[in-house]
């Protein structure tokens, strides 16, 4: 479902070119649980941005669900992110003015889902991360782990083909990390495709497949 072919992304700092991604190839099948691990500055975030359709490659080809991404306009990319990808970020990235419920509801509003269905799906998503009781709380009233669970609920509420985690446990203590990883495992068991980007060996090791990234180059490590 994810197919990166010779993808490069180049940043220009002054007159020097920096290859954040250098002819990277990556194939991920549906239902896989893959972690991408690498030190900071290795091109992790760039890879995540491209896979998550937040950014486009300078060269090479990216197929998401067999559809090439390059030709899309900004608005079409937004629609793909909305429908196919669920993001879980390191810093949660919830909107502080909105309650947990409203945060989870937001992608459905952008999908123009009707109100009754929205309510039902939000309730279901919050139930799956075990946060139904906190639905009406603001992010500031929730702990880090709870906020990240809200973020996961927001990611899964659209039933995306891909759940993309960018250091989802980076801001959490080890106990909460376990809790969040537990949710990812559950989601994986339920058939979701999960890609986690991390620099934490322990977290990475929980995936069924680990991909290393260093200086913009990807290398597979046998399972």
């Amino acid at each position: 479902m994810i197919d990166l072919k010779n993808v490069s992304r180049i940043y220009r700092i002054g007159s020097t070119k920096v290859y954040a991604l250098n002819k990277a190839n990556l194939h991920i099948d549906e239902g896989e649980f893959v972690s991408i691990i690498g030190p900071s500055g290795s091109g992790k975030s760039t890879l995540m941005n491209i896979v998550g359709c937040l950014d486009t490659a300078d060269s090479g080809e990216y197929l998401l669900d067999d559809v090439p991404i390059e030709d899309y306009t900004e608005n079409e990319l937004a629609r793909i992110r909305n429908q196919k990808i669920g993001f879980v970020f390191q810093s949660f990235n919830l909107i502080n003015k909105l309650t947990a419920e409203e945060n989870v509801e937001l992608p459905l509003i952008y999908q123009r889902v009707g109100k009754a269905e929205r309510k039902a799906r939000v309730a279901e998503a919050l139930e799956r991360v075990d946060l139904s009781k906190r639905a009406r709380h603001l992010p500031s009233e929730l702990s880090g782990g709870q906020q990240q669970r809200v973020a996961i609920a927001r990611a899964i509420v659209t039933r995306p083909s891909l759940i993309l985690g960018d250091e989802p446990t980076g801001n959490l203590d080890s106990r909460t990390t376990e809790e969040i990883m537990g949710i990812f495992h559950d989601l994986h068991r339920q058939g979701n495709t999960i890609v986690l980007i991390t620099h934490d060996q322990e977290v990475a090791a929980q995936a069924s497949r680990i991909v290393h990234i260093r200086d913009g180059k990807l290398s597979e490590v046998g399972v």
Partner: protein
Amino acid sequence: MIQSFKMAVKSIAGNKFRAFLTMLGIIIGVMALVILVSLVSGATGSVTDSISSLGSDMLTVSISDDKGNPITLQTLEEWMDEAGIGLIAPSAETSATARYEGTSGSVTVYGTTPAYESVNGLSLLLGRFLKFADVDNHTNVAVINETAATELIGYTDCIGEEISLNGVKFTVVGLLEDDEESLTAVFGRGSVVAYIPYTSLMRLSSNVSSQITSFYVSAETDMDTAKNAVTELLMERFDQDDDAFSVSSQDALEDAMGSVTSVLTILLGGIAGISLIVGGIGIMNIMLVTVTERTREIGIRKAIGAGRGVILQQFLLESVVLCMFGCMIGVFLSWVVLRVVSVVVSSLSMSFSLEWNVVLIAVGFCFLIGIVFGLYPANKAAKMAPIDALHYGG
């Protein structure tokens, strides 16, 4: 759309003090526009009313040079039979000292004929107006107005009382309603008034002779025909010299008044409009700050699938809601101010009320300002690249 509206209200409510300061420009602008224009139209409305209550179906003729061929009561009598002309009433005016028992006071005395009542649209409360016989016989009868009755005699039921004007005794035969709306009342000129037969005034005042220099004409059918007929008669009489006399209608006065007020309205409206635009710049300024502050939020929204249009709509709506809310407060405060002004100046017989068409203009203008000045910040927000926005400030 409803969702975006709720979000806009929420984010404005999230920072009430700032929202209020931002709206202040719009509030003041709207108040300036609505109050100034309402005041102008209220004031001119009452003046225009008084002018038209003088009777717009009346011509005022004044003679400056009779060329040795003066107009007399007899002439006017004949002219009343001419086609197009209704009634003609001569008017001469003098100031006299009136006495009644112990009291005395100054009174404006008009000498005229019975036609005056109808031409000038006077309304009689008691008794009768002047009669032809009074004019023919130089009878010493007077018709006075309410003010004259209360100030001089002390009560209004005064038919049959005798007053003296410059020492000559006159019997009061009629009582006229005070003409609150008349031009003379508006301009505050002596409202103590007595009407006596023209011939009696000739005897009372040395300045008034049988040569009539001023008279009023009413139309038989329409004003234009009457005006043409009168002008033709006068031209004929005064050797085709149109400098010898002037014929003016109230229409001309009203027209002049109307053009003065419309210029005034446009001028004041324009100034108020400028202050609204200044308010709009304030909105734009704060919207730009808001967009920068919420860069991260924009990034999140874009990451989870908000397209350009959605973000544009969100911020545009926020600026429009801000403007419209300011506009509502402005209109409300204008209403309060106008009510207060109305109460304070109620003695001037002017009424000030919210001009609904100005309110509509203000609402429309605010809407436009919300869009125009919201467009740039909203577009700035919509154009942000999701990754840049997402990583902004951490």
